[in-house]
């Protein structure tokens, strides 16, 4: 199988690769006709996976190295046994059916490109950039997909309509802001802030002079009392005078901010709302691309000792086996790019990057009973009451922005992993805010209990509870430093 298929490649620049795994992996390469080949461009490497499936049900896999920390502080090895592992095409019914998975196409493969740093914003001109670009699905416009009733959008059309209205409302509000007024408010706020800073400094100066004169600071702030010295009263009067001016300035600033703050808020909402609309449009284009995602699943179990509490003298009450099964359908990474480039910091050469990740998962089921036997295997209602269902999940996540905020990878001298997004500074903030896209994470439906229909869709039936949608919108990380360590 696999490599025994003939492959015609007339342009050596373009290499078609298929994973040629033996055993339970099935894959094959398809021929290209001349038209397909003529559209291939002469740079980079493309990766396409076709007719692929992986099923580890006949094998055995265990994971070691994880320990349970007992209340007394000792560590006990926990063996994790992987009982099910598969990667198949969408519609495999939790990996039962041998549906083949395809990733990308000849026209739209995963590409490895070598780019010049001079062509990418905020990457050193002299750097060469290795870009891994996942397939995009923009052959059909968003509206075309929305009008195609054969595409199941799982309610995302309604979400898009809602977010488009929110964006239009915001844009209308932005248009209603008079630029002259805005500039005047900003200028006045700046003047007031500067004056407040000046008056605060003057009050601090009065307090410093009081300290130098050996006068209790509280006498200046609260009053010198009946028998206060002339110096005290003079400084006290000066302090109060600045205080009165300060109060006037604060009142004036508050008045300006009553106009300025809503205007600023309205203006600031636009990038986030645009990013939300773009994220949802991206998912809709992906769903309308006629591309199936992958079904991915894993089941594992491990035995742990039970203790009566966390107290150091807690007694062991027995053992139990925890079961976890994760079944994902319609998993697809699309429109994603990872760029890696050489950089230098503090005299050292570094490997930096930026990641623009777009991930869609049609459903994720988390089951806590042993799905290989008993009621959990044979009784869907029993299993459903031990399952959390997540549906219509997408991540549109941006990590790193050129050299303004590179995504840095490193390993510490102790062998631990360090992942870092350099802090945005006041000098780089304007560029970062204007050009680095915001991230969005969305889960359309969270449910518990009931049964998910075999062909997909939302669960329902006995014991079903809905917990609605969850979302993180307009996320921007200005600084991140993650380092692992021993526990």
């Amino acid at each position: 199988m696999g490599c025994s298929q003939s492959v015609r490649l007339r342009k050596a620049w373009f290499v078609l690769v298929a994973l040629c795994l033996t055993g339970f992996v099935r894959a094959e390469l398809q021929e290209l006709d001349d038209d397909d080949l003529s559209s291939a461009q002469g740079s980079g490497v493309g990766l396409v996976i076709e007719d692929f499936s992986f099923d580890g049900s006949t094998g055995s896999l265990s994971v070691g190295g994880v320990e349970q920390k007992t209340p007394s502080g000792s560590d006990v090895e926990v063996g994790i046994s992987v009982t099910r592992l598969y990667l198949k095409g969408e519609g495999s019914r939790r990996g039962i059916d041998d549906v083949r998975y395809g990733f990308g196409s000849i026209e739209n493969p995963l590409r490895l490109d070598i780019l010049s740093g001079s062509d990418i914003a905020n990457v050193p001109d002299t750097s060469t950039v290795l870009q891994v670009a996942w397939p995009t699905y923009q052959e059909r416009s968003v509206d075309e997909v929305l009008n195609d009733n054969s595409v199941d959008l799982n309610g995302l059309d309604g979400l898009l309509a809602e977010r488009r209205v929110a964006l239009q409302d915001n844009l209308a509000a932005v248009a209603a802001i008079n630029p002259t007024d805005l500039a005047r408010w900003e200028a006045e706020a700046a003047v007031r802030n500067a004056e407040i800073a000046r008056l605060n400094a003057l009050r601090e100066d009065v307090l410093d002079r009081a300290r130098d004169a050996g006068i209790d600071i509280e006498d200046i702030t609260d009053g010198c009392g009946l028998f206060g010295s002339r110096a005290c009263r003079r400084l006290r009067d000066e302090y109060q005078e600045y205080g009165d001016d300060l109060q006037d300035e604060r009142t004036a600033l508050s008045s300006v901010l009553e106009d300025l703050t809503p205007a600023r808020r309205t203006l600031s909402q636009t990038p986030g709302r645009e990013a939300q609309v773009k994220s949802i449009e991206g998912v809709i284009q992906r769903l309308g691309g006629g591309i199936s995602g992958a079904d991915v699943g894993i089941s594992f179990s491990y035995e742990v000792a039970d203790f009566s509490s966390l107290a150091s003298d807690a007694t062991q009450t027995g053992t139990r086996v925890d079961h976890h099964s994760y079944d994902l359908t319609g998993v697809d990474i699309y429109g994603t790019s990872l760029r890696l480039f050489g950089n230098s910091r503090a005299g050292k050469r570094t490997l930096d990057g930026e990641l623009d990740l777009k991930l869609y998962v049609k459903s994720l089921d988390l089951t806590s009973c042993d799905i290989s036997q008993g009621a959990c295997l044979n009784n869907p209602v029993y299993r459903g009451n031990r399952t959390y269902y997540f549906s219509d999940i997408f991540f549109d996540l941006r990590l790193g922005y050129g050299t303004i905020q590179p995504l840095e990878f490193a390993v510490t001298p102790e062998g631990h992993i360090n992942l870092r997004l350099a802090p945005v500074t006041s000098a780089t903030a304007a560029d970062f805010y204007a050009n680095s896209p915001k991230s969005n994470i969305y889960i359309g439906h969270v449910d518990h209990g009931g049964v998910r229909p075999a062909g997909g869709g939302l669960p329902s039936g006995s014991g079903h509870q809905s917990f609605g949608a969850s979302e993180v919108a307009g996320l921007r990380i200005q600084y991140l430093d993650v380092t692992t360590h021993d526990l």
Partner: protein
Amino acid sequence: MSFKRQQLFHCLSLITILATGFSLPVLALQSLNDDELGDVTGQAVVNLVTDTIGSGANETRYTRVDLGIDVKTQLNADQISLGTRTRDGVEGADLNIDNLALGYITDNGNGEIEPFRIRNPYIEFAYQGDEIVGMRVGFGEAKGYLSGDISQLSGNIAVGINGTLGEIRDALRATGQDVPFLINLAAGISSGANMEAEAELVLENGVPSNVRATRVGIPNGESLATDDPLVAAIGGLLGILTSNDCGAAGLSTCFPLTNYRSLPVGNVDVPDDLTTDNIEGAARGMFLAFGHQDVQWRDLENTANTVSSAAGAFLNVPKFRNEDGELQAPINVNFTQVFSGIQRLASCYNSGGQGTVGC
């Protein structure tokens, strides 16, 4: 060229191109000698901890997955909403925070990033039999500022109100109301008498509720307390200062959550000791839970206690230990601040501290 040779050629081409591509960033790997290699051991970045709460039919067993990770971050999000759905006939979300920020920027947005710190985050599963009844993501240690406009909150958040009797009298005068005789009398005797109360999440009628609360306030039937013996001896005074339907003696005792825009998680006044791995002053009880039923969780700040989460999404913003080792509410306000709220710390550069304006 035969097919096999052609295939070999393409495979070699691929390997060459990949190797060339990945080596473009100019990097040099350093070799380790045998001694250095001998020091490298398997890294225990993941640990499991088990626990049990309750017994018999009420027994819940827990498996916590501790992650050996240190995080320093400053992030902003336009909105975080969890559990958006119709609940008990009312639309809304279990948790809705606009303009969320972790960490802040000093000097009112003109200085440097002061990150939110997390050490040893964990994921914990609660089981009854073979059924997961809830899960939570928590932080073994957390310290920093959490900012946002909290419009709906399912969870726990304590507010300590501390002030003097004189401030209460002044606050009443500021409303234009007649000050009750007993308050005037007591304030005349001891205007500096300390008065305090602990507020919590309540509904608009003052009934405590940790589900979709929009206000924080003194629950119905709870009174301001004092440690001043003279004031305490004035019969009927504390009765006047007992909260009912979000009011006491003409003063409002419930306030919108959106008033409190920046909350300290942990004791942010304690500087970090760089010689230790721990985060000094960190809170140990912060977590975000989700479940289809109410679940008791171990309070990691005080493991003798538990925290009950309601079904749905649930955020626990914990008390932390002050310098004296006493548990302190994350929000502490006097009788002026309780009305005006807490100003937001800037989380965007050049924003004047206004939400996530500008970023």
